[in-house]
Structure formats: C-alpha cells, structure tokens
C-alpha cells in the first residue's frame, strides 16, 4: 500500500505535542502527510476507546502524544494516560491488531525536530505492518 | 406420503442450492456445541439432533437490515434529499426448522402481512417471507424445556411449514403442507411410501386457559411482578432467541458526509433503553415492568389484536436464560391464586 493512502490518526495534547508538531511545521520540516491530527486538551483525555474506535473506522495506525511525564499542564493527566495506553498497547495483539500500528509517546513544545522524525519513523512502521496485514477492519455484513 | 432416504438429503439440498440459499442447523466452529441456523454449503455437516440457540427468524427479520438509502444533493442554494427504498427478493430454503419455529412464522404473518383495516403491510418482511421455503423436521423427542404441547396441535403443528419431514428408519417421510412443499416432494429423490408416521413428541404442558384475562387482572400488582422476576437480569436473550418476538429499533447511519441509510435492527422490550424517552421519562423503568409487558404482549395483547398467541413453546428462553429463570414458572404464578 503506498504511503499516501495510509490513514494515521494522531491524538496530540494541546500544550506540548500539538505545539511541537506546530513547530515542526513552521520550521518546514518534511513529514509524511498520512497523519491526521486531533488536538485534545491532555493525553489523559485519550480514552483507549478513542484509539479502538479509530481502528474500527478504518485507521491504519494511531499515535498518541502528550507532555513528558512530570510536565503535564494539568499536573498528572499523562500519568493516568501512561497506565491506560500501556495496557491498551499490550491488549492490541489479542484483538488481532499488530501493536506496530499503535504508539504512544511524549513530545514537548520545543521538540519540533524530534516530532518530525517520530512521525517519519511511525509512518514507516505502519507501512511495514500494513504490507504484512492489509486487512485490518472488522467487516460489516448488513443485508 | 413420500419418503426420502437419509443419504439423499445432501443431494436434495445440493439441488435446491442451485436456485436458492440453503440454510440448516449447524454446530458453530470453536464452540461447545452451540447450534445455529446458518447458510449450508455442500459437504457441510447438519446438526439435526440438537436444539439451536437462536431461531431462524433472521431469514424474515434480519438482525439488521437496510430500509432505504438516502443521498443529499445540491439544489440551488440548499439541498434536497433523494431516497431509494429497498426491496429484498431473496430465495431461501431452510431445512431443519422445528414445528414450533415454523408456527412462529405463521404467527408473524398475522402481524407483518396483515390485511386488516388499520394495519400496515411490511414490504421487507413480505419480500423475504414469500421467497422462503420451509422444510420442517418433526420432533419425535423433546427435552424438559419444550412446551409446545401446551398449544392446540403441539408437535403436530403444520402452520408455517411447506414440507414436513418425519424421521423414520433410514430416512424421512415427507408430508407436504403447501403447494411449494408438494412441488418439492415431487422430485425423483423421493418415492411414495405407505409407512406410518412416527409418534410425535409430547412435551411438558403449561396451562394457558384464562391467561389472557389473568394477565390483565395481575397488571397493576407490580409487587407480584417484582417477586416473580427478581432473578431476571433484564438481558435480551429471551427476546432475541424467541422465534415470535419481533420488536425492532430504527437507526440511521451515514456512509459519508451526505449519504447513508436508515436501518432497522432487533430490539428487546427487556432493555431499559427500549422505552426510554428523551425527556428521561421511562414508562417501564424496572425489569418487572418490562417482563410484565413481555409476557402480556405474548399471551394477552397480541392474541387480542392479532388472534394468535405470540409463543409457540420452543423453550429457548428457558434453556438459555443466563439467570435460569423458567418462563413457565412465571406463567404459572400469574395463573395461580
């Protein structure tokens, strides 16, 4: 599957990662355009179900990024997120979703270059998984 | 009577499969003998000895089906809606339904194909029903959850069937009920037979005389209903497994931004959300209210409105109830005292 048709959903916290991605954009760093960013107030807002819903609706990969642990704008949202997302990550293989399709990480507002690199790496990773398992979506069969 | 040898059954189904989808009861892979009606393919194993967890009502009332498709199109300043209805025209032969399940089709016909004034005909049901041929397997044995003998004809019920197979040694005697059934039994895989029909199952009985009235008398005694249904978990299994339960929900789905469809899917009166109004008011807030409605619908309202009891005694709601609640015990309690 060509990279251009990949659909990757990114849930980015408003305070760090979204600003980081913004910085990468303003610095005109080259990044794959397969990522669709959804800005959320905090990585703690990212209910694991949002990730699963994205997969159900046909996303090929999901990326969640928040403030570095210790730097949460709200104090401890990303600590809660970390527990949930780690659990989710380990549950994906049971659901038949290659864990390579999901990544959670922490990117600060000043890490534009790191963000660009990370998106590039993750897109490549999803691409490889997609080749091995192209058929991800649970199919509907309504008459 | 006609006779068909056991080994000719796959041949018969194979031939039927040329012009129609053939459904038969089969054991679901990876389960502990969960039996469901499913599309049959040549070589497929048919399970005729076991009780299926669900009836085959999805052949006339699919769990989810599209009612129509819509598309918004630009028209001047605004948009207009284009609507395209659906008209299912499938041909299906089902093998191995039981007399209770087939009877349920006749009961549903009384609602969905009603010609009486003030009733609406359901075109989706009609489209599927008219393309359905029912080969019923008569029951010569039963289990303790069966209670079809509570109704007039019991296991000898023929309503809803096109052709009935009676198990005899080496094969089945075939008794046609409808024109469709006659045609079916005329093919060369059958031969004439003078064998006697086997004795049919006699199940446990539950007394239904006067139940219609008793339900109305019991209606306002909510404490009675609370007590009778206190172990009920208020899930939808009994409704979904029931061959006669037919209530549905309607919902919309969008395919893209400005197009999609309206669908209907099974719904169960045991759910809180079933009657929940957007104001927050719910006329049936407790499981007891809902169970009362379910029972009264089956044995009082539907008979009153449509002339048929909305239960055929298949026993699925008893066999599969996760709470072990026996529907018949509640009926008996309504009748008693």
């Amino acid at each position, binding site marked *: 599957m060509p990279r251009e048709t990949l659909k990757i959903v990114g849930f980015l916290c408003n305070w760090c990662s979204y600003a980081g991605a913004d910085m990468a954009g303003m610095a005109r760093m080259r990044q794959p355009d397969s990522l669709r960013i959804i800005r959320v107030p905090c990585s703690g807002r990212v209910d694991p179900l949002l990730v699963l819903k994205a997969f159900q609706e046909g996303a090929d990969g999901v990326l969640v990024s928040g403030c570095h642990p210790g730097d949460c704008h709200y104090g401890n949202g990303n600590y809660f997120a970390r527990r949930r997302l780690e659990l989710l990550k380990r549950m994906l293989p049971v659901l038949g979703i290659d864990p390579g399709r999901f990544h959670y990480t922490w990117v600060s507002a000043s890490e534009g270059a790191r963000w660009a690199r990370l998106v590039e790496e993750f897109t490549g990773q999803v691409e490889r998984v997609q080749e091995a398992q192209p058929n991800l979506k649970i199919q509907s069969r309504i008459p | 009577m006609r006779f068909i040898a056991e080994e000719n059954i796959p041949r018969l189904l194979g031939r039927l499969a040329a012009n129609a989808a053939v459904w038969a009861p089969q054991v679901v892979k990876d389960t502990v003998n969960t039996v469901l009606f499913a599309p049959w393919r040549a070589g497929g194993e048919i399970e005729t000895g076991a009780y299926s967890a669900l009836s085959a009502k999805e052949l006339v009332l699919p769990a989810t089906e599209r*009612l*129509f498709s*819509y598309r*918004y199109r630009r028209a001047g*300043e*605004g*948009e*207009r*809606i*284009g*609507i395209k*209805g659906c008209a299912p025209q499938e041909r299906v032969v089902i093998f191995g339904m039981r007399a209770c399940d087939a009877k349920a089709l006749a009961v549903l016909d009384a*609602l*969905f194909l009603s010609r009486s*004034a*003030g*009733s*609406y*005909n*359901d*075109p*989706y049901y009609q489209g599927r029903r008219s393309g359905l041929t029912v080969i019923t397997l008569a029951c010569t044995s039963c289990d303790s959850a069966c209670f079809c003998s509570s109704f007039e004809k019991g296991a000898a019920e023929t309503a809803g069937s096109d052709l009935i197979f009676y198990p005899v040694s080496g094969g089945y005697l075939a008794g046609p009920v409808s024109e469709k059934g006659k045609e079916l039994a005329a093919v060369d895989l059958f031969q004439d037979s003078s064998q006697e029909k086997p004795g049919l199952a006699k199940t446990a009985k539950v007394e239904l005389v006067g139940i219609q009235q008793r339900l*109305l008398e019991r*209606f306002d005694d909510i404490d009675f209903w609370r007590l009778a249904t206190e172990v009920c978990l208020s899930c939808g299994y009994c409704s979904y497994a029931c061959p006669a339960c*037919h*209530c*549905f*929900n*309607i*919902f*919309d*789905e*969008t395919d893209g931004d*400005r197009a*999609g469809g*309206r669908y*209907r899917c099974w*719904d169960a*009166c045991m759910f809180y959300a*079933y*009657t*929940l*109004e*957007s*104001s927050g*008011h719910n*006329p*049936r*807030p407790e499981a007891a*209210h809902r169970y009362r*409605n379910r029972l*009264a*619908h089956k044995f*009082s*309202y539907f008979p*009153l*409105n449509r002339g048929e009891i909305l239960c055929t005694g298949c026993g699925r709601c008893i066999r599969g109830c996760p709470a072990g609640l026996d529907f018949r015990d509640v009926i008996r309690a309504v009748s008693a005292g």
Partner: protein
Amino acid sequence: MSTVPRKGIKAAEPLVPEPATIIDVIKEGPNIRSFRLIFDDPGITTAFSFAPGQIGLMGIPGVGESTFAISSPPSQRDYIQFSVMKTGFVTSAIHELAAGDAVAVRAPLGCGFPVDSWKGKNILIVGGGIGMAPLRSLLMHILDRRKEFGSLRVFYGARTPADLCFAGDRVQWENRDDIEFIATVDEKHPGWSGHTGLVPQVIAAQPPAPENAVAVTCGPPVMIKYTLAALQQLGFTEAQIYTTLERKMKCGIGLCGRCNIGAKYVCIDGPVFSLDELKNRMVDGRW
C-alpha cells in the same frame, strides 16, 4: 379510535419517508419551534389530508426521526406544521434547521380526534406547554366549523409567559367572542396580566358544566394527572374525556412494539384516546 381513515403515507412502503422542505421556522418559546414544510413532490402536498390529532414522523436522514403532532389545521393547504420541543438527539438537530433545509416526513399516522361525533356539544380544551400543539390543530379546525359546535372554552397553561406557544394565534383567539380563551402561568410574572395558577386550579375556579360536553386535554403527565382528577370531580365521565398521548415511537405503524399501553398502540390506535379506552391506565404513567 378507528374513526379517521389514513391517507397520505405510502401504503406500500410505510417506513420510507417523503422528502420535504422547510419553508418557515417560528420561534415559539425558549426551546420550542414550529416548522412549516411542504413536500418536495407537490402532488403529495395537494393530496395531503388528515384529522386534527394525527401525528407524523419528521426526521433528518442521517440523524433519525421523531414523532410529532401536526399542529396546523386540515384547512391549511399551503403547508403542514410540526411544533418541536428541543429535548433529545433528534429534536436538537431539528432545531438547527432553517427555512430551505431538507427533512423527510412520514405522515399522517395514527387516529385523530373524532370531531364529527362532537357536533352540537360544548367543547372544553385544556392544554399545557408543548401539549398545545395537537390542540392548536383541533382548535383551529373547530373554529373553521364553529357553527357546528356549542360553547368553546380553552384553558392553556405554561410555566412562564415565555413558555406559552403560538403567540400570534393567541391574540386572535383572545379577541374572538365565540371562544373563551384563558391562558395561565404558574406564578406571577412581571408584565403578565393574565391568570396565574396551575391549570387544574384555574379550571376549578371557573368550573365548566359536564352536561353535553367533551373535554380534551394534552400536556405534561403531571398536568394531565391533576386535570383529569379536576374534570372527574366536576362530573365528567371517562367517555367524555379525551387525551392525546406521546410515547417513544420508532415505526409509527404498530410493528416495532414499544408504544403500547396495554393492548393499545399509541401509534395506530391513538395517539387520541378517550379515558374510557385506557381504563385509567395512563394515570400512573407506567405501563
């Protein structure tokens, strides 16, 4: 109530709505709006006929549909009107609509008021809040045929003056001398010179005679409960009192199962019922 024939809905495909277009939206109150619409197929608008009290399902494909009483009278041939209170998922989406927007409608459904059997009788109409919608249709229908009936008295109550719907119509009704129209709000309110007090109290203060009369009521359950008690106290029998009900509905044609009150289905046997038919079962609001 099988007195009124059903026309207009597609007999062959009763679950498939007709596309229609909103031509006007009237803001009736803080959370109530009236939507006037015409069918996209002009033939349907021309042939459309119904009785006051009948209902329709109006919806937005992609969102869903809900049941509403038709609030325009049968004599209104230019459009049909639904009055919608914003309460849930579908009604919130409908409230976003403006003139020119597309909707899809299945109407008329159910049975209306048996108005023909009321000829020569004194009519008492008791409405509360959005419950006035079907009664507006009925009232305007009766006014169209005013000579056929005896006295006409209308009580209309709401929580505050702003919650009283149909402001334009009310002025006309109040100014006619062949109708006694009494609007009331629950409590005193700056700028409100009309009646104050709950509807049943206002009725009790000016008691209508039950002889040769019919009473029609529609409103919130608690108002209905006390209005029925007040009417029965005055000597109205169950056969003299009519009400029109609203239940959660999906199909509107008696198949989907949820709107029944005992063996009666609100969608096809109602929504108009005489109290006689319901055997008082509606009083506790649970069936």
